[in-house]
């Protein structure tokens, strides 16, 4: 079932999504949660870095950059 869910790294640039669940474990996950990426938080994917990896998103009114690998652990819904 998890494989079918939409992840943040699959979201098109410019769209606004809602966080369903943050997967993963440990320090990285805690960091993502601490930054405000929690259940039901709204995220807008802003842009991709020039060489295609880190993403820039807006969450809770500020800009956050995170790598695609990290974005992949964030399950979202439109």
């Amino acid at each position, binding site marked *: 079932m998890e494989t079918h869910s939409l992840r943040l790294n699959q979201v098109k640039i410019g769209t606004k999504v809602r966080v369903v669940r943050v997967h993963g474990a440990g320090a990285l996950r805690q960091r993502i949660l601490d*930054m405000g990426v929690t259940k039901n938080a709204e995220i807008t994917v802003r842009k991709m870095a*020039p060489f295609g990896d880190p993403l820039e998103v807006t969450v809770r009114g500020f800009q956050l950059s995170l790598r695609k690998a990290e974005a992949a652990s964030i399950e979202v819904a439109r």
Partner: protein
Amino acid sequence: MKKGIALAGNPNSGKTTLFNELTGANQYVGNWPGVTVDRKGGQLTEHEEIEIQDLPGVYSLSPYSPEEVVSRQYLLGEKPDLIVNVVDATNLERNLYLSSQLMETGLPMVVALNMCDLLAERGMKIDTAALSRQLGCPVVAVSALKQTGLHELIQLMLAPAPAAPKQLQYPAPVEHAIAQVVEEYSATRFEAIKMLEGEELLQKGVSKVKAHALEDIRMELEASMDDDVASIIAGSRYDAICSFIPEVLVQQGRKEHFSQRVDAVLTHRIAGPIIFVGIMYAIYYLSINTVGVWGTDWANDVLFGPVVGGWLAGFIGTEAAGVEALTMFSSILAMILIFPVMLRRLHDLNMNGAWLYLMVAPFLLEYVCPHLPGVLHTSILCLLGLANAALLGLCFFKRGVKQGNVYGSRTHGFCKAPMKLTGRASRTEFISWFILLSLIAFGAGMLGRCTLACSPQLQAIIADGIVAGVGAVLGFLPQMAVLFLLMSFLEDCGYMARVAFMLDRIFRAIGLSGKSVIPLMVSMGCGVPGVMATRTIENEKDRRMTIMLTTFVPCGAKLPILALIGAMIGQSATVATIAYFTGFGSVILGGMMLRKMHMFAGGYNPFVMEMPTYHMPQGTNINLRAMERCKAFVQKAGTVIFLASALIWTLSNYNWKFEYLNTAENNAAVKHSMLAETGRLFAPLFSPLGWGDWKPAVATVTGLVAKENVVGTFGVLYAGSDIPEAEADDTLPRSSDWLKANALNALTMGIWQTDAATRAARPAEQQQEAEDPAPADIPSSGSWLLDRINMVVAYLFPEAEQTDETSGVASQVRAAGAFSTLSALSFMLFNLLCAPCFAACGAIRREMNSPLWTWFAIGYMTLWAYAISFITYQLGLYCTAGTLGTAQIVAALLSVLIIVQVLRPTPNK
């Protein structure tokens, strides 16, 4: 009784600005104390009984990052009397997330709502009374930048601590679970929540049975909320905060702010990298090619030439220095001595901008005025004179500002170090120091007429050993100052985060992160600021790795070595290409290898990073930071290079019986010196690399003082070699093309030109340089990058390279027959990659802040250099001459080993 106050808050919320203003920037900056991050302490101005701790910025109190651990240990362990929670008003939700955790510690708290002015610009306002009601603690709106609201904040800090703030209410199942844990373990609310989150640190004292009970509580909570505890708690906190945000934040006018529009350009997919290259070029141009070099040239050609040199000759020599040189000497000395107290006096007058004038005025006098027509020249001189007089008049007679000063209203006692940069100076203090220091400077200048006629030996050790060494360091300073100022500006305005964002992808591939790019770029000019630029990398592993790799990049001072070897082999462009490939290749391979070593492995460094909003940096902040760095550079790198150059001078001028050899007059004598003897001892170590003679070994050692010394030393050591006069005359000027090709050489030439031994070896060349300032074959465009491009062009079109075939030193070395093509190549690679010059080693020592790590870094570089040279030489022998022996097999095994280490998967940790 001292009262402890902790400043806590998110990174970039303006804590340090606030701290500097509260403490009058009387901070003792603990640069990375211990191993991790800094916590700065200082005293509230005018209230020394209040000790303020500036905690590192954190997003949460979880115990993961080093910053979090430091902040948490201080708050829970030392229990300050009051927490001042600095909250960035433009980012309320995320900042209050930390506040909610601080509130749970049960310590009295005051919220300092910072950056309210920025919020107002975006058409929003925060109702502080409502926020205070919600949090149950006092809230003050401040602007650290514009110094508003500080008075109220200080009043709150002085008043008896307020009652502990109230707690945010979480959903019923969470509250129920917290209550259960509190009851079961008699824990505080903070501990209970952290235990629920599953923190090992707090669970250590818990017995197994009780641990099971905790597990049950957690399971129950997870079942009722259909999520796991960590995200339930984080979510509950944010939900609780969001519930009152609409009440607190009024006039929500949503407009895309300035930062995002700027960002759309600066991190654009195509324009972004181009702008980045442009900015880097501008920084180079300003610090390495123009302003910095002007200052450096002046330091080398004027200050350490006729001025200090003349004074010294007059003092301990026999020839009294001229009045002009002495006047200049005393006035420069007076300016340097009075500068700190002048700066503090300007703070006292609330004229912080005037430091810029102090910097710019001498520059105008020295560089701009001489090029202007007479009338303009005179009028500018008059203007500057008037401005100086006005400034001095103000400093002498105007009363200080008691209130509203950025640096507080406390003055230092008279005897407090006159060299202190921060704080204030009162009128009396300034006048006293001004007179006293002027007299000292005048007196010191007068020493130049003493003509003590010391023994030539003492004169030589002071002039060639000590002054040459110190001059070499101080010659770097103007460039450093410009670079530090520009870098501080970029750091403060928020661009660095964007650079890391743009280039992370590329640098991650080699085991570094996006933030490593700046040090590597800077190192192409000079390794010392390159190493220092690693400061902006927060992650400790990344920082250490970057420090270890950044000096592999061929810096400007290594260019003469390339030129020498290129001329010896007769293939300058090829040699340069090989050198650059090896340099950057070493960074890449080194990154991939080190990442797999135990100490750097694992600990995946998340790139979950806040992109701060752009803002105009505060001048005083940048200034202070740059000056602190300059001071640190002079102190630390200065002591290292000072001792090292004195040591090498001594070693090369005495034999083991401590008889003075006087190499300045007798070049050949150097082969009896301690340096030569030691060189012979170590030479066999280098014979596997193809150059087991003592001369290259000695050159390598002198190269540690400054890399161009390798060429100078060769000039001295191979001077006796028999070469046809005509050829030498014909080819001498050409080496100077290379020397001019890089502006940086000019500055490091300081040690070279003052080094009597090399000066004696190269008189013809210097004469040529003077006669022929603009050689045609390599256009001296003044542009550093263009010269590199020229090298590439020369490589692609070999005909253009013909003129640069040989150089004087190279023909001497060739005549001596000491090197084959292969061994010359291996010699060059070793010198490019091995331990950097002492100045850079000093910088590494300073940035690593640990002798062990410094030696590890230097050892790693030297080993790597040895391995690469060994492989190049031995496998080269096999390929060209077909030699096959143990050495070749070892070399082949070594290269296989390196390949394996590079390719093997990263171990899990």
